[in-house]
């Protein structure tokens, strides 16, 4: 063997081992959570309230809280995100204002989630007087997911063929009629994918809701958007670091982590399925 062949062999072996290591990490994460999370995971666990200082019982209020806050955040971010993307793709000229908007969207995507938490605390909780509530947390999470909704909607709009736009404009449609009747309908699957991914992101975030709405423990489900709520990711944080009997509640923590993982995977698979079905 020449020196060249040997270096090629070791080089490619290196790439294969890097890939195998990454796959092993994914495998280990899934295996550990499934193996140790399934013992406490049951229908009862998903549908009952925590009992005896969260050492027994289930996580129903956390699932409920995460669901409503996530849905609320996406409902708030959806019109803004889609509106912004439609404006940028269909209306805006390439001028300084448009460049400023695009730069803001890109940089917002990089703002640390804890900073969104501080913003939500100052603006929604304090400034607008929403208090520590479902609404304040929903608004904060909505802003956090806005950049990704804008990005995916823009991509969906870019994929609409120019010919269908020109056809509708040639028949005398105004730009808005063209957007509303031609462009948006064919971009729906792409937009929907982005919205589902935004739901998944919002469901897993903890830092933005820490000071804006989440409760350590609550005996009741939130009765209105001005109440505090329990959330799955925060509940996992509590069970694994803040609880008075951390070792004893490990099985519950594992099952909570598994629930959260299943929830986000389910959302991601749905998004994947919507995209795949549309491509065909």
């Amino acid at each position, binding site marked *: 063997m020449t020196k*060249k062949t040997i*270096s*090629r062999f070791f*080089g*490619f072996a290196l*790439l*294969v081992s*890097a*890939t195998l*290591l*990454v*796959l092993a*990490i*994914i495998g280990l994460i899934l295996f550990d*959570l499934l193996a140790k999370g399934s013992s406490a995971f049951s229908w009862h666990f998903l549908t009952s309230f925590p009992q005896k200082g969260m050492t027994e019982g289930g996580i129903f209020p956390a699932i409920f809280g995460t669901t409503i806050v996530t849905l609320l955040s996406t409902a708030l971010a959806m*019109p*803004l995100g889609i*509106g*912004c993307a439609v*404006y940028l793709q269909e*209306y805006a000229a390439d001028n300084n204002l448009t460049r400023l*908007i695009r730069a*803001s969207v*890109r*940089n*917002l995507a*990089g*703002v*640390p*989630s*804890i*900073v969104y*938490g*501080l*913003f939500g605390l100052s*603006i929604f909780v*304090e400034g607008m007087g929403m208090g520590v509530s479902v609404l304040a947390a929903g608004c904060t999470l909505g802003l956090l997911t*806005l950049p990704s909704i*804008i990005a995916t909607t823009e991509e969906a709009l870019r994929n609409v063929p120019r010919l269908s736009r020109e056809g509708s404009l040639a028949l005398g449609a*105004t*730009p*808005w*009629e063209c957007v509303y009747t031609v462009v948006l309908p064919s971009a729906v699957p792409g937009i929907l994918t982005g919205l589902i991914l935004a739901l*998944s992101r919002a469901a897993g*975030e*903890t*830092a933005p809701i*820490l*000071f804006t709405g989440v409760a350590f423990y609550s005996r009741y489900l939130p009765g209105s958007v001005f109440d505090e709520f329990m959330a799955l*990711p*925060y509940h*996992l*944080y509590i069970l*694994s*670091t803040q609880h008075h009997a951390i070792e004893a509640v490990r099985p519950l923590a*594992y099952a909570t982590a598994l629930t*959260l*993982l299943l929830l986000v*995977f389910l*959302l991601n698979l749905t998004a994947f399925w919507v995209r795949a079905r549309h491509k065909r």
Partner: protein
Amino acid sequence: MKSRFFWDTFFNKTLSAAALVSVLTLAGIFLLLLYNGLQAFSTIDIAEFLSAAPWNPAAYDAPVFGIGAMLFSTLIVTFGSMLIAVPLGIGTAAFLSEMASPRLRNLLKPAIEMLAAIPSVVIGFLGIVLVAPGLAQVFDLPNGLNALNGSILLAVMALPTLISVSEDAIHAVPDYYKEASYALGANRWETLLRVTLPACKSGVLAAVMLGLGRALGETMTVLMATGNATAMPHSIFDPVRTITATVAIEMGEVPFRTPHFYSLFACALVLFLITLGVNIAAERLAARLRKKGQ
């Protein structure tokens, strides 16, 4: 009935208002951090704040606010994570792009991108129950909640973005670059190392910067898994507390409009400026890449 053109103008204006929300939010975040953060310096000496003085804001007689140790902790945890994630990520990206069959690639890429969907608390939890005990055993430590643990976890979280973006960059290198290299007698490994990777290095670098920005701002994972000691770390086996973790821990308990309250905004301001700088650098690199592509 309003004219069709009225509605067109109406939606043009409404949608542009929606687009301005992003600009207002970014400006609002910056101004809020600046306004509240600067108030901290009416009572705290800015030199002390940025120095290696201890972080002891709750001391009754003489509170001290020094973020030096937290800043240093943030940097070592982040750079440690990049040391782990960059070789692994680029290696995997090169495998997917240059070695894997299209079928294998289409199978592995979504699987790796799924990793990005795992919430940060779940990664932090695994850091506590899986990685920390492992580290404690391997390196003979009392517990494994330290800077190294944080680096490993942040590396895992940075990997999917890093792999996905650098794979796109490697894949975008035109075939004729490689064909020219083969024609000159280079084998596939030499071509990858000397032609393909150098040709897409700004794209790969942009991917690294993107991962770096994420890791710097990550909160829950480091909060849960790095031990939360505010002292200056002496090695990667020391427990550390990052800037994000400090804000997350203390903001919930601090009385409003006190020097301590404002100092947490000043911490967030420092963090915001660092991540903004990293993101703008990544964007410049990506823009340079696009220009070269034309």
